[in-house]
């Protein structure tokens, strides 16, 4: 059956504000599970999930794996190196072979934009996008938003600026869609060579100077600067980037008010963010990581057909939340 989110989670662009709020609300009770001594509930017992990672990832893969295991799913990790992918197998063949083994869900990370949708259109299993090229990284967007919500409550009218390489960032796109849908006031700041030319049409504010962004913002989501951007000639050097766009204690102090600092990781200390900011009192970077597991549990649970109002009960130990999990495969109606 199709849950309240549909068959797949491919991006935040296609979700409504209510669907995003549903995921965040569902994540709340799951947060507590990770605080227990026995960090496990049976909500997805018997489900098989494949984590299909065509790109290197440590944080996201581990976070998904913990989320799956804490819901009692059986998980298999497949990475591109050492698999049939490195022998030239196509994405569609990889997917069909996995599905032939009767799996329930695929979490996919791939370097090509659209890869998650490509997969979702071709297999019946639920597909979760764990980052596709420079397109979207919806669970990262959700965990960023959950972290902001923990501090701000309602995000309506809250001023959030995403800083850095917007052009190549899937995190930025998911954040822009998600925050905008929840009514936040969103801005971007970075060198123009790392902003999409069509950024004006995104409906966000644009700051050319980081000082202006800091003057305006209540929270900064600081993106990682990929070093290949320098070799590709988008910006001259990491040193200059730090001097012009780096988030330093000194720059933040000038604002004379508290500004929340987020970073999706992994950080380049001394490049896009200085250590005393990353480790400072207003940094919520580690809260993001903690929330990542809860948000991913919520997404897995909801896609598997779990009823949101029963998440609390599922947490309690029963399997009450697993409405309609069985028989799902039979219905061609899964496809949207």
């Amino acid at each position, binding site marked *: 059956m199709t849950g309240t989110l549909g068959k797949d989670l491919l991006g935040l*662009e296609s979700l409504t504000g209510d669907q995003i709020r549903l995921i965040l609300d569902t994540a709340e009770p799951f947060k507590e599970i990770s605080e227990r001594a026995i960090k496990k509930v049976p909500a997805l017992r018997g489900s098989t999930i494949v984590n299909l990672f065509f790109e290197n990832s440590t944080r996201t893969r581990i976070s998904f794996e913990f989320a799956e295991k804490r819901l009692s799913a059986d998980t298999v990790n497949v990475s591109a190196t050492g698999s049939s992918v490195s022998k030239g197998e196509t*994405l569609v063949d990889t997917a069909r072979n996995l599905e032939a083994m009767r799996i329930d869900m695929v979490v996919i990370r791939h370097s090509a934009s659209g890869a998650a949708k490509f997969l979702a259109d071709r297999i019946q299993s639920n597909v979760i996008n764990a980052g596709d090229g420079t*397109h979207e990284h919806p669970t990262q967007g959700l965990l960023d938003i959950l972290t902001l919500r923990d501090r701000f409550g309602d995000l309506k009218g809250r001023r959030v600026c995403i800083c850095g390489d917007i052009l190549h960032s899937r995190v930025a796109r998911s954040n822009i869609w998600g925050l905008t849908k929840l009514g936040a006031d969103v801005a971007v700041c970075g060198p123009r060579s790392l902003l999409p030319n069509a*950024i004006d*049409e995104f409906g966000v504010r644009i700051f050319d100077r980081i000082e202006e962004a800091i003057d305006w913002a209540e929270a900064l989501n600081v993106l990682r600067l990929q070093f290949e951007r320098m070799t590709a000639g988008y910006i001259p050097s990491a040193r200059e980037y730090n001097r012009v766009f780096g988030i330093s204690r000194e720059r933040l102090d000038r604002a004379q008010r508290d500004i929340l600092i987020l970073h999706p990781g992994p950080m380049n200390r001394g490049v896009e963010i200085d250590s005393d900011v990353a480790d400072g009192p207003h940094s919520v970077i580690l809260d993001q990581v903690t929330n990542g597991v809860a948000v991913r549990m919520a997404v897995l649970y909801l896609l598997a057909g779990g009823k949101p109002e029963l998440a609390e009960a599922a947490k309690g130990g029963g399997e009450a939340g697993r409405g309609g999990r069985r028989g799902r495969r039979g219905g061609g109606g899964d496809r949207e």
Partner: protein
Amino acid sequence: MKPVLLSGGTLVDPSQKLNEPGDLLLIDGEIAGVGGSIEGPEDAEVIDCDGLIVSPGFIDVHCHLREPGREDVETIATGARAAAAGGFTAVCAMPNTDPVTDNQAAVGFIVRQAQRAAAARVYPIGAISLGQEGRVLAEFGEMVGAGAVAVSDDGKPVASAQLMRTALEYARTFRIPVIDHCEEPTLSEGGAMNEGIVSAQLGLKGIPAEAEEIMVIRDILLSRLTGGHVHLAHISTEGSVELIRWGKERGINVTAEACPHHLSLTDESVRGYDTNAKMNPPLRAAGDVEALCEAVKDGTIDLIATDHAPHHYDEKEREFADAPNGIVGLETALAVIVTNLVEKGDLTFSELVDRMACAPARIFKLPGGSLKRGAAADVTVFDPKLRWKVDPARFLSKGRNSPYSGMTLVGRAACTIVAGSVVYESGIPVRTRERQGRGSR
């Protein structure tokens, strides 16, 4: 060869300002009689063209027939049959084959394969540079001697302005156009679609309109410098149209083509990562489509060409950024133009016939393009009102990669005649066409 009498149709031939009901008689591969009611010879084959338009045969100056090298995706024979099914009596084959068509033997091979196919005529286009590598000029003279009608490095832009200059100068001796695929390669590198809001949202690297426009104005200026005839392939942007208009106003020897897909689709088609919406130049914005349609109407864009580019199913069935560029177009071109331009009042049937038949013959100095007495009997008969649903599985081309799959379009070739011989007839028997047509609506 039996004489053919095309009876009861509407003759549309802008080369003699003809647009009225009348018969057409073909004898010995030539037009023997045109207009009015013609009493054909006893042995003539009579084709009832009631409700149909009879026009000079369509000529596609830009297609990729893949032979030699990729006979698994298209051959000269299948391409020539697909062309005939689309109403084309002749096509020009681009030289980006494997090996590249860059010498007289390779050109001769295409001519021979086309004769064997006995469908639409196929005119080879030779490469500008050996191996299309952009360095050493190919032997234009020998290629023209073997049957080449133009030169192009299509698929690859001519990056070197000096090579383009030399090609334009050298081509003057042989009175052939130099066709350029306008793309500034450093700006377009890695690009998978039009640069704009859609590419920004999809996270796909964009190709800005300026990558085309920079080369358009370069080529126009080099044509002014050399006096050579430059023909600009598959123009896709509003800016290019303005630059071409600028060149033509100054009497510069520039001509240009546009493709049916650039006249009907925008980059919105890429949402969903459909690789059948991936081609180069990419589908552009709505404003570009509008400007191109106007330019086809006012003649700034001289002609319509398909850029027919078949690919194997597996090659398109993959991640968008990694999929090859190109779509098939021979069997949908007429219908796409009728549906998107004629039906909307942006183009008359006379103008359609000019841009698809007369202008290509005139600009590339090819036989056909006219129904005047004595002209080559290359004739297209088409139903201007027939509605049909595009089903790529029914294409005669080996290619199935069409963005129009499943769409209902208007207008379809009924009969295609090359040198007085019928090379294609639609499945519907001509005499019962009207009833059948009504039934399918």
